[in-house]
């Protein structure tokens, strides 16, 4: 009899959702068999069994969220082995006492870590240690409580007022002891409508959305961005793409402008190693590998699959690999290693007709290139106004890692490479 725990499947993962159980209770399980699909903050991943036996219990049902380390199921020696209830509660290890009896469904969804602050790293509200302990005991979320102490600190009086309000709305709980409630009180049902005069309703947020919010907030708060803009003449690039795609016609591969830009970025980064760097904890890291991430919009939110060793990857492979990763991203099937290790990102909103835009850096990378739409512009050539296809590029740079002149030299080289596209593949 052994318990299966919610695994840590990525560095940033703090909790996981049971996406679906592949094995049913009573199924025979062999090492390597996929037991369950788990949705992390980044992707849906298959989780395999490490030992032989029978799945005798699914402690967490599909769609539920539990923290890392929580028991999600039990593997036994025979299909009808009875799991030891005392050791296989569905509570997180952080919870002090397992519920004495089966709790109603709604309560299982209560986040055990709610009282100690949101799990996604948002700043937790100012609160006294006593208030935090009481909130934990009453099952209250500090985010929902307004503090009356100095600088808005939540103190005991605020918790007790909130607990009183809660027990008034849940009469069955009024008998709960005031000082030492043993079981967390059920949380109030999530508010569906906010009476804020704007007819608002709360939209359920998935893990991808939470990670986007946290990472990009961190980026804008901690990374001093500066921006460099440059418009390139895309006539040669257009001709080059047509020629390349003609040669590849038989293979079914079709190179996009974005593929060319990604490859050009990798080639140019090789000549500008200072841009291929990260500022981490007061240290400057210069990366030997060039791994370009490509921002992809999917239903769940923005994900950035990474093309490892982009500079060494042939253009045709960049194209197929990007399409493959984008498809996986849309299905939520990207593996963490396919989204980590990036050293530079490219974000392209050209397909929406955006002229140009400033992108937010994807930490700990030092820069991101925002690519606008290709469009015809009236430009001056040899004293004549002519119509040319152009693309506007905007480079966002972390000034801690890269200075203005260094970034500008990179952008200049990149622009010239794109205007003389043979250099992309040289």
């Amino acid at each position, binding site marked *: 009899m052994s318990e299966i725990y919610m695994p840590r499947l990525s560095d940033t993962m703090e909790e996981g959702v049971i996406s679906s159980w592949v094995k049913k209770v009573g199924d025979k399980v062999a090492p390597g068999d996929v037991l369950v699909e788990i949705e992390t903050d980044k992707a849906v991943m298959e989780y395999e069994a490490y030992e032989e036996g029978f799945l005798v219990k699914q402690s967490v049902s599909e769609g539920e969220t539990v923290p890392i380390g929580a028991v999600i199921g039990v593997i036994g020696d025979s299909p009808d082995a009875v799991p030891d209830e005392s050791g296989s509660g569905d509570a997180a290890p952080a919870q002090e006492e397992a519920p004495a009896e089966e709790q109603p469904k709604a309560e299982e969804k209560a986040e055990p870590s709610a009282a100690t602050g949101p799990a996604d790293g948002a700043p937790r509200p100012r609160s*006294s*240690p006593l208030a935090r302990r009481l909130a934990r005991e009453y099952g209250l979320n500090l985010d929902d409580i307004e503090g*009356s102490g100095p600088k808005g600190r939540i103190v005991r*009086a*605020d918790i007790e007022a909130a607990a009183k309000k809660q027990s008034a709305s849940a009469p069955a709980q009024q008998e709960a002891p005031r000082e030492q409630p043993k079981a967390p009180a059920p949380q109030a049902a999530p508010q569906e409508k906010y009476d804020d005069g704007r007819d608002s309703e709360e939209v359920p947020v998935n893990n991808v959305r939470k990670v986007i919010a946290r990472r990009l907030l961190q980026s804008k708060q901690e990374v001093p961005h500066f921006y460099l803009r440059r418009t390139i003449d895309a006539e040669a690039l257009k001709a080059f793409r047509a020629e390349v795609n003609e040669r590849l016609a038989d293979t079914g591969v079709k190179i996009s402008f974005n593929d060319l830009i990604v490859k050009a970025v990798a080639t140019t980064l090789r000549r500008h190693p200072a841009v291929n760097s990260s500022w981490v904890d007061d240290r400057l890291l210069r990366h030997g590998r060039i791994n370009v991430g490509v921002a992809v919009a999917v239903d769940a939110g923005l994900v950035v699959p990474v093309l490892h060793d982009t500079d060494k990857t042939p253009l045709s492979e960049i194209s197929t690999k990007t399409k493959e990763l984008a498809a996986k991203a849309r299905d939520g099937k990207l593996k963490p290693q396919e989204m980590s290790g990036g050293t530079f990102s490219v974000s392209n909103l050209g397909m929406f007709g955006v002229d140009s835009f400033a992108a937010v850096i994807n930490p700990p990378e030092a820069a991101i290139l925002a690519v606008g739409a290709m469009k015809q512009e009236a430009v001056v050539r040899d004293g004549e106004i002519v119509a040319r296809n152009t693309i506007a590029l905007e480079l966002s740079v972390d000034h801690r890692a890269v200075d203005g002149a260094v970034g500008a030299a990179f952008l200049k080289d990149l622009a010239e490479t794109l205007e003389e596209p043979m250099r992309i593949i040289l």
Partner: protein
Amino acid sequence: MSVITYRQALRDTLRAEMHRDENVFLLGEEIGVFEGSYKITEGLLKEFGERRVRDTPIAEEGFVGAAIGAAMLGLRPVVEIMTINFSLIAIDQIINHAAKIYGMFGGQTSVPMVIRTPGGGGQQLGATHSQNIELFYSFIPGLKVLAPSTPAEAASMLRAAIRDDDPVLFLENLGLYNTKGEVPDGDESVAEIGRAAVTREGTDITLIGYSRMAMVAGQVAEKLAAEGISVEVVDLRSLRPLDRDTIVESVRKTGCAVVAEDDWLTYGIGAEIAASIQEGAFDYLDAPVRRVAMAEVPMPYAKPLETAALPSIDSITTAVKETLSAVGRRVG
């Protein structure tokens, strides 16, 4: 039950202990013929004679050393150092000899002596004669440091100190000698060394003090009770060993604490108390622990400045109210 002064309680206890045990004897400056600078030993030379009440030269290191030697050979000396300020002359004897001999020589001999000495400011005695440096001794393993705040405690704790086999620094206070309190007639109680006392029960906040500050804490609690505030007062009584359990238990009940101390704030006794509270009652704290201590200056001589430098009923009351306000009690 009779109401007597702190001074009287000490004198009665010394006298009774000298009658009880012929090995108990007194030594110090001006304690015999002059009957003590603060008259604690009044009448004792006449009653017990020069052999047991010994006037010494003005040489603290010498007579503290002599007392250590006597204690090692079986007597129970009670030394009076005129004020704690003068103990600095004898600090090597106290810290490097009295506190260490039992441990360093394999327990061959204990050092059953008492050093009685008053601290405290507020008497316009100037910077060198108004210090509260009990911390120096409370810091030293091998010593016991007692600091009674009432006549009854002074009596039962002095009994305990004299009968204890280890060196005890017995802290008195110039501001307490004339205070009065009830002492049971014929009381023979011996205090347990290392126990603090909850001298007033309350529910809203814990106010901690020792020696004179324990008395002032009681006055603050009395005053605030009239405003509907329930203050629990903890009298530390023993600075070493320190009774952390009683402190922590009280703060676990009230959720917040103020420490009042006559010594300086930085590195003071209150710092140790605050640290003990966060170690033992972190999850019970609803507000930061506040300390009210003497101003960080050598004691001024001028009366208004001296008064301003010392913690007072008003400054402690303010700290209590501010702390209560921080936990949501709106008080005037």
